[in-house]
């Protein structure tokens, strides 16, 4: 064997933590592991919100469509986890397909179940803010779990991976959000609910890039002879 050729720094770094590791589960299984988070955002979040604010939830057919959106969010997260594994990155066509289907399902689910509430312009803007704030309040903590799962792999395109992670979480949160939202106005749905998802996409991309920078710095420290 060419054992002697391994640089001593590399050998030391390897021998410092050579404990057995369990391979990551498949992307589909890891996405499925987030099902409780999806159920929490789909059921517990609207239930808590309607109890706290005494507002009526949408009737049962709307819940079915929300469940469809939750399932879609798990598919998006599965694609995200696959993208994060080296050598298994998604093709441009697959990415376009994921984004296209997500957009279509979001529009279909949100625009078929509710009619516009016909509120004044001032209230319209207030409700924009309320929906965006509420969606972000509940979904940013939910973003932590998939972001952690992504960080365990090594995405070659961190911004894209993080964006997919944010998209999945955003769709998951929207599935619950649309049940408690009082306004079915198209502009409201697209700007407030879609806007919240886009903010999560941006946050996901930024956090993945930040994690990547931190990892690169750690690697440089190891190479410079620092701690692992």
């Amino acid at each position, binding site marked *: 064997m060419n054992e002697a050729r391994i640089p001593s720094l590399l050998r030391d770094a390897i021998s410092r933590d050579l404990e057995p590791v369990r391979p990551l589960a498949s992307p589909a299984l890891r996405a499925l592991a987030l099902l409780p988070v999806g159920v929490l955002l789909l059921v517990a979040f609207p239930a808590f919100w309607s109890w706290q604010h005494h507002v009526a939830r949408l009737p049962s057919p709307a819940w079915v469509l929300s469940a469809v959106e939750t399932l879609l969010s798990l598919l998006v997260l599965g694609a995200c986890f696959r993208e994060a594994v*080296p*050598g298994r990155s998604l093709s441009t066509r697959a990415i376009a397909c994921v984004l296209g289907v997500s957009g279509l399902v979001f529009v279909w689910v949100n625009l078929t179940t509710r009619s516009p509430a016909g509120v004044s312009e001032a209230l319209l803007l207030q409700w924009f803010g309320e929906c965006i704030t509420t969606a972000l309040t509940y979904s940013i903590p939910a973003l932590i779990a998939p972001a952690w799962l992504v960080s365990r792999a090594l*995405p070659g395109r961190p911004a894209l991976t993080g964006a997919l992670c944010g998209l999945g979480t955003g769709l998951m949160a929207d599935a619950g959000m649309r049940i408690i939202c009082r306004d079915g106005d198209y502009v409201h749905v697209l700007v407030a609910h879609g806007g919240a998802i886009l903010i999560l996409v941006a946050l996901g991309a930024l956090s993945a890039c930040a994690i990547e920078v931190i990892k690169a710095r750690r690697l440089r420290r190891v190479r410079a002879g620092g701690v692992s």
Partner: protein
Amino acid sequence: MTAPPADESRLTQLMVAYQGGDAGAFEQLYAILSDEVRRHFARNHRERRGVNDLVQDLFLEIHRSRRSYAPPLPVRPWVYGIAHNISARARRAAGQQPWPSGAPDVLAEIPAPAEPLSDSLDIEQALTALPANTRDPWLLHHVFGFSFDSIARRLGITVMAAKLRSSRATRALKLALQPKGKSR
């Protein structure tokens, strides 16, 4: 001094053993893959020291990310995926430094495999056979992930020309790498 070509199943076995905490398996993986990945980096980096650092970074990252390898998938795509990531990091760290054009002087110092590795050497030969004006846009885009805008600026050509040349290179590579006797 060169490592013998290893088939994927052997690499998979070694990788599984390495994930189980076997230091010897890592050493064997290093022996099998290091020259191969060094050649991969050397095609694109002029300085030997830079290439050696990249190889070391690669194996450190392989170690840190070893849980992300899922057996029994082939090991090489996983390793080259990480290599692509390392190259991208190096590129980002280098900022706006111009693309190194004289790479082959490092390549010459690295021992070639004793027998052709069916994938890497075929691709290398096919790439060498391409005219430089189509090979460079292809390498810059598909290996190093530069955008066509950036490639066009670097090479002083239009974006459309960069895309066209890369596309021609892809077609030529597909033809060159087709199994013998198989038609389009």
